[in-house]
């Protein structure tokens, strides 16, 4: 009898029921709570026969902590219980909705799918002729829908501006640093410590990563990739360089001034090159630049310079994110 009872106490269902009743947290002792002190609740012992005493102890602690009347505690427990039941029901409902939608999706690559209308037909039939880009995903993104991509680059720029507002440490915060020198000490603690393995590996990998990123950006209209992915690769390369060799080295070629100049000139060029489509009703295929032979690296009109612009903006944004997160400046 006692063994069955013990099995039941340690079973998943019993834990779930206790969690449902608001007695214990299902993830208690499972989640990493090291950052939050003072939230530890007494964990029920693994010994099944002790659970009633534990419950009494927990109630006592609760009573002391909250110093509330019995009635309030009961209503609170009821609320907790309803809250948890509603949470489970909501989760199941969302899962059901997602599964229902997935089941009713059209088959992958089917000919009668609603996505196969006149728009992709036009792109596929005359995309190469009209944009000059062999990879007509890029042709779509940077020619037919270049204005959308301009919005996306601006979103990245605004995001890095917001991170800068929130995390930047400038002259105003030097007073803060004087009052709390441990902040600076912390950062120095986290600085890379001239790790030889990392530096050797970075010295070997970095040229490959950077050349691959430049290749993706420049070949965006010929092969898979383009400004965004290439810029992300370049940004990762810069981050690796910073992590291996420290801020002293990167600051020789990439400061905040560089970041500002590159981002602003790239966005301005993009804006000047494409914003006239705002006035022509998003119909902007004629750029005046000859399209060249499809397949050559210098072809497809404005797509190559626009790709470079997007790549530069993305690279700077990724690098700025990292440095701002790291220590609030470049």
């Amino acid at each position, binding site marked *: 009898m006692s063994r069955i009872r013990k099995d039941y106490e340690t079973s998943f269902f019993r834990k779930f029921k206790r969690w449902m009743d608001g007695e214990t947290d299902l993830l208690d002792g499972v*989640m990493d709570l090291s950052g939050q002190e003072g939230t530890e609740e007494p964990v029920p012992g693994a010994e099944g026969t002790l659970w009633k005493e534990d419950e009494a102890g927990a109630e006592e602690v609760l009573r002391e902590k909250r110093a509330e009347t019995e009635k309030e505690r009961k209503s609170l427990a009821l609320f907790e219980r309803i809250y948890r039941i509603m949470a489970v029901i909501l989760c199941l409902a969302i899962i059901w909705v997602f599964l229902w939608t997935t089941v009713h999706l059209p088959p992958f690559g089917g000919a009668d799918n609603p996505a196969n209308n006149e728009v992709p037909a036009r792109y596929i039939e005359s995309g190469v002729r009209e944009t000059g880009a062999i990879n007509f*995903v890029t042709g779509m993104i940077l020619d037919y829908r270049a204005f959308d991509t301009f919005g996306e680059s601006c979103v990245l720029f605004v995001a890095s501006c917001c991170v800068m507002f929130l995390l930047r440490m400038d002259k105003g915060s030097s007073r803060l640093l004087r009052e709390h020198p441990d902040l600076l000490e912390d950062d120095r603690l986290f600085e890379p410590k001239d790790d030889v393995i990392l530096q050797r590996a970075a010295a070997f990998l970095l040229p490959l990563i950077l050349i691959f990123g430049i290749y993706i950006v420049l070949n965006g209209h010929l092969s898979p990739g383009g400004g*965004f*992915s290439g810029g992300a690769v370049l940004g*990762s390369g810069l*981050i690796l360089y910073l992590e291996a060799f420290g801020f002293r080295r990167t600051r020789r070629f990439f400061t905040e001034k560089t970041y500002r100049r590159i981002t602003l000139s790239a966005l301005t060029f993009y804006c000047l090159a494409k914003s006239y489509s705002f006035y022509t009703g998003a119909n902007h295929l004629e750029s005046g630049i000859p399209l060249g032979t499809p397949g050559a690296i210098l072809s497809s009109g404005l797509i190559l310079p626009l790709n470079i612009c997007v790549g530069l903006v993305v690279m700077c944004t990724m690098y700025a994110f*990292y440095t701002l*997160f790291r220590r609030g400046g470049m």
Partner: protein
Amino acid sequence: MKVFEILLLLSLIVCAVSVAVVRDLLTSIIIFMSYSLIMCVIWVLLQSPDLAITEAAVGAGVTSILFFVTLKKIRAIRKEEQDEQD
């Protein structure tokens, strides 16, 4: 190929569940990273290499690095380093 796809999708589900369940924050970030890598292979199988490159660079690379830096900042990693030294 079908078996490989099913394997990938299954491991995707396993990764997605274990990110939420796993105890350690650092481990869950690494699992999140592997989720992105599996997703990258699936994009290649779905014939969209553009998305695959972006997923590998942004999902597995930059996002995880930002998560790591944040963990360092809130001192979630530092404690474990001390534990290892002990």
